[in-house]
């Protein structure tokens, strides 16, 4: 089983140095692209590889790059979204801390493809170790001639900087990220225009997730067929999956996108802790719908999870066990979303705290039968199309699916006036 993204990691958590990365074949893809490929050819290759964005939405990466206007004056920007804050998600942190040069090489290749001359790693503030590692790696890359003017004698110029953002969920939404990077509040912008046309400072900009960018050197090196064959199903490449919650061995693993939920939980995460039973899972982070026992054999790829009624999201699942209060868990998550709402649009700003309050009332045994209707009303009212960005609809996914699969839990707390 090939694990291109993680196989060269040292195993002790320390970052792969420039020398170690080069010894493992690092920066060969960059040499190849600069020497043998036109920028457009890199975009075409990535498009044909079928790589989909690993930031959660799964948009085709090569397609996204192809929207960038090519014959326009500089500057153009390439931004790595390293704001990772989807609860349950810690995959990008591993890549940032342990293989910084893989990310940097991916970023240079992406920048070359869209002919960007400026790039930023937009890193969340709490990732202090990653900040140190990336800062050092960028310096090494400059010193080795992989960044700066006339990279490897090709005539291509690129600057790269680290931007340490702040810890807010909203900063990861790509247009809010752009506002934050301009030194403003992290509220989203209207799309269209998409950032590809008008992004940072109004210039053409691509924003890609850490894991997405880390795939690029391997696609350039080994080709589209190889990349597609990493996962024999509908999707291409490997995926870094994670499992958190009350399992024996929480963690993250790079695997083909044919792995099932059951395999992840039982074979990789060691199964449930003793005495606990599986009740459900949020397959792709907190902003995805619960899946339950009947879905355990669902394949963890974009189509498989969607067909089961949820989303692959970031591919990092949170497990709910039979000793945990469903209402308490959902209340905890809605608290998160309410805290992190940017307050820009009314349904989200007002609705989320309301939902949190109703859930709390039910949790402490003071709920009323009509509370369930109130919650259901909100899942529609804050659903897709009614708010400015995807935060509010994302917040409704665990709630609406909990009401679907675990309705009895809500009803019993209300009927018997007991607390969770």
């Amino acid at each position, binding site marked *: 089983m090939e694990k291109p993204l993680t196989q060269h990691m040292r195993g002790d958590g320390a970052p792969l140095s420039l020398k170690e990365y080069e010894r493992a074949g690092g920066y060969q893809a960059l040499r190849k692209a600069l020497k043998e490929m036109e920028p457009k050819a890199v975009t075409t290759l990535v498009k044909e590889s079928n790589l989909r964005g690993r930031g959660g939405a799964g948009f085709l990466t090569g397609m996204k790059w192809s929207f960038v206007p090519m014959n326009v004056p500089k*500057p153009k920007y390439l931004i790595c979204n390293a704001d*990772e*804050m*989807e*609860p*349950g*998600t*810690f995959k*990008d*942190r591993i890549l940032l801390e342990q293989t910084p040069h893989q990310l940097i090489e991916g970023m240079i290749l992406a920048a070359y493809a869209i002919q960007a001359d*400026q790039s*930023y790693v937009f890193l*969340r*503030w*709490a*990732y*202090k*170790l990653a*900040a*140190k590692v990336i800062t050092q790696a960028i310096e090494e890359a400059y010193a080795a001639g992989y960044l700066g003017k006339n990279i490897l004698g090709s005539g291509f110029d690129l600057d790269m*900087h*680290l*931007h*340490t*953002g*702040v*810890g*807010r*969920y909203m900063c990861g939404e790509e247009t809010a990220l752009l506002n*934050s*990077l*301009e*030194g*403003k*509040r*992290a509220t989203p912008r209207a799309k269209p225009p998409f950032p590809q046309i008008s992004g940072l*400072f109004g210039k053409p900009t691509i924003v890609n997730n850490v894991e997405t960018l880390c795939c690029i050197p391997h696609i350039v090196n080994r080709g589209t067929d190889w990349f597609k064959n990493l996962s024999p199903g509908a999707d291409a490449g490997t995926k870094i999956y*994670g*499992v*958190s*919650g*009350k399992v024996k061995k*929480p*963690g*993250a693993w790079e695997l083909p996108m044919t792995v099932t939920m059951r395999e992840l939980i039982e074979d990789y995460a060691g199964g449930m802790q003793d005495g606990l039973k599986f009740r459900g899972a*949020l397959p792709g982070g*907190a902003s995805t719908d619960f899946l339950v026992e009947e879905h355990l054999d669902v394949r963890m790829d974009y189509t498989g999870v969607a067909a089961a009624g949820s989303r692959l999201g970031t591919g*990092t699942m*949170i*497990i*709910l*066990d039979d000793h*945990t209060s469903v209402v308490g*868990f959902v209340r*905890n*998550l809605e608290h*998160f979303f309410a*805290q*992190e709402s940017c307050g820009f649009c009314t349904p989200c700003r007002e609705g989320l705290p309301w939902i949190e309050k109703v859930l709390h009332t039910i949790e402490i045994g003071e709920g009323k039968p009509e509370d369930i209707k109130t919650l259901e009303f909100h899942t529609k009212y804050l659903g897709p199309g009614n708010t400015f960005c995807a935060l509010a609809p994302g917040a409704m996914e665990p709630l609406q699916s909990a009401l679907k699969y675990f309705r009895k839990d809500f009803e019993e707390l209300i009927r018997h006036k007991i607390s969770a």
Partner: protein
Amino acid sequence: MEEIKFSEKSLALVNKIIKRYPEGRQKSALLPILHVAQAEFDGWLSPAVMDLVASVLKIKPIEVYEVASFYSMYNLEPVGKCLIEVCQTGPCWLRGSDDIVEHLQNKLNIKVGETTADGMFTLKTVECLGSCGTAPMLQCGAKFHENLTTEKVDALVEDLRATNARSSYMR
């Protein structure tokens, strides 16, 4: 009132950060520089510190206040020498973050959001810090403390007390 200034070391860092952004776009440096300021001036941003940042970046003070109040990582009130931030989001909650918070409240004899009388500790709850696979966890300064147990928390608090230094956010 005493005039406040960045130390030479911080000022050098501030100028280095400003250079990361295009000419005339120095406002982009605002968020990173607020972190430098917070680290330098006792872990929080007083109005005077925010005014200093505004003058360094040649922007209006209101532009700084507006941003500083939006992002929860900036402290607009004084904090203790060691800010203990316990993650309370889903994966950590499932693995007992409430017990960790409860334990700290009892141990430090303060509630979440408060500072101990000796000015040593401030306790805060925060949202997911990307350590969900090693939950429950807390952050103190630049350091993550993962797979927490009440024993580990005790050891950490003793250690911080013995060291008696301000936790550093700058690595």
